[in-house]
């Protein structure tokens, strides 16, 4: 019953826009580092580039987060944990793949223990290239994700 009411309400464009706007500007990110883009995660979160301006706050508890940064390579051992973490996050959840290793495996095309692209494990929304990407590129990735969220559930005609 409740869910039906919710669905009805969400079909109203005006309300949907408000919801999307709220989601887009409160993307808290999970504190998970998988590869060498880790220090840049700190670089973009600290004072100089300060992604908190876009609502992206690194947060230790993944139960309250909706954004997962895959910072670099994902090994086969880590892939299971990444999947587990992704499953534990509440809906709606978004993933940004940082760096070339997360996108395609990059350097480790002949490695025996690296997953060739994180999209084999979890769905990815935005790919940010670079090794590691500069904080400006991270900001662009976050901005692009926000654009995507703002269009969610609204038919483009």
């Amino acid at each position, binding site marked *: 019953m409740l869910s039906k009411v919710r669905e009805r309400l969400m079909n109203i464009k005006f309300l949907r826009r408000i919801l999307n706007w709220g989601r887009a500007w409160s993307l808290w990110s999970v504190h998970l580092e998988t590869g060498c883009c880790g220090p840049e995660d700190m670089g973009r979160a600290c004072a100089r580039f300060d992604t908190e301006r876009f609502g992206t706050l690194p947060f230790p508890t993944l139960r309250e987060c909706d954004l997962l940064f895959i910072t670099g390579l994902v090994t086969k*051992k880590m892939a299971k944990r990444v999947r587990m973490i992704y499953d534990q996050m509440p809906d709606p959840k978004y993933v940004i793949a940082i760096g070339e290793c997360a996108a395609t495996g990059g350097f480790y*095309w*002949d*490695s*025996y223990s690296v997953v*060739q692209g994180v999209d084999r494990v979890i769905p990815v929304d935005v790919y940010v290239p670079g090794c590691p990407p500069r904080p400006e590129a991270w900001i662009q990735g976050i901005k692009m994700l926000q654009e995507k969220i703002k269009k969610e559930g609204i038919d483009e005609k």
Partner: protein
Amino acid sequence: MEDRVVEDVKASFPDDVLEIDVQRRGRVSISVKRDRIYDVGLFLRDKLGFDHIASVSGVDYIDKKEFEVVYHAWSIDKKILAALRTRIPRDNPVLKSLVDVWEGALYHERETWEMFGIKFEGHPNLSLLLLPEDWEGIPPLRKDFILPKRPQE
């Protein structure tokens, strides 16, 4: 300094040392028989002061059907790096563990075991360290391990 190390080792183990030379300043290479590596290691640590383990590496000589195990130990007082090496057959890769000699070799030997399949007798915990838990197949750093091919787009 390096020459004295060479002389001391030669004098103490005249039959067991196969080859010993000074590679350059601060580098001594000692090649010993397989079953005497423990005693030579103990001698290096106690008598000559090589007490700081630097690395344990395996090398796969597939043509000669042999593994070489190299222990690099650093002497903080003498400022010399000694490479203690021995060769073991590829079909029976067993070696006495030197964990009692250098406690720091614990993780190095464990890594060498998982990467080459060289069993270290007397090692307290030979289990997978770096590889995924469900690893199957031959150890990856052996020369007959085949890597994935070039990606296609």
